[in-house]
């Protein structure tokens, strides 16, 4: 999460021109480890973060997820999937002028909690939602 790293003073803005990929964060295997890798361990649950997703996914290969933040000065949004082999799925820098809203689709290995993590005005907030993944079609 680029904006977060900058907020934490880890890299200078000039370095951010090159495309960064936070290998350490994407290799984490639990929610606490991901939060730690993103410098977001102190994140608090907030009603200002809203997840829009179905309670039940007909197929785990494509699960539609939208995250919207009502928090002022939202700088970044990340999506974490607790029970996936790697927890962190995606993170988005939200520059000023871009709505604090993102909609995408993720893979879920099994029924799991998903976390939407938001960096707003230098602080971390999150929301949680469980999504059930069903066995589809004729099954294996």
């Amino acid at each position, binding site marked *: *999460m*680029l904006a977060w790293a900058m907020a934490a003073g880890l890299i200078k803005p000039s370095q951010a021109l090159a*495309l*960064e*990929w*936070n290998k350490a964060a*994407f290799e984490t295997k639990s929610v606490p480890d991901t939060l730690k890798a993103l410098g977001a361990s102190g994140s608090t649950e907030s009603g200002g973060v809203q997840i829009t997703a179905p309670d039940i996914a007909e197929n785990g*290969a*494509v*699960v*539609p997820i*939208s995250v919207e933040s009502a928090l002022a000065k939202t700088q970044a949004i990340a999506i974490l*999937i607790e029970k*996936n*082999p*790697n927890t*962190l*799925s*995606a*993170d*988005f*820098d*939200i*520059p000023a*002028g*871009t*709505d604090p*809203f*993102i*909609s*995408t*689709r*993720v*893979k*879920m290995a099994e029924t799991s909690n998903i976390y939407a993590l938001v960096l707003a005005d230098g602080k971390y907030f999150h929301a949680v939602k469980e999504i059930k993944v069903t066995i589809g079609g004729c099954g294996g």
Partner: protein
Amino acid sequence: MADPMRIRAAMDRGKVDIKVLMAHEMETGQRKDAQGKIVPAHFIRNVTVTHAGRTVLAAQWGTSVSRNPFLHFRFSGGKPGEKVSITWLDNKGETRTDEATISG
């Protein structure tokens, strides 16, 4: 070479509404092929969207973004007729850039 993206850029209540589909396998590195061999991970790591020389969205992705990724977001400050440019870069260094014109 990778197939072009499908980009829909349209004005919606004064903002630019972007929907994009990208043709990419998004291999997790955990799937086995018919011979039982692990298929190496192959996935988009970075997506950058620019408008008028300004980055309006920058994303980092892992392997769990769905195959043929879909992305939807909105930004302010664009007008019909202007261009939006989207670039993705994957873990093998392959990259693709496509442009779309903002429609009314």
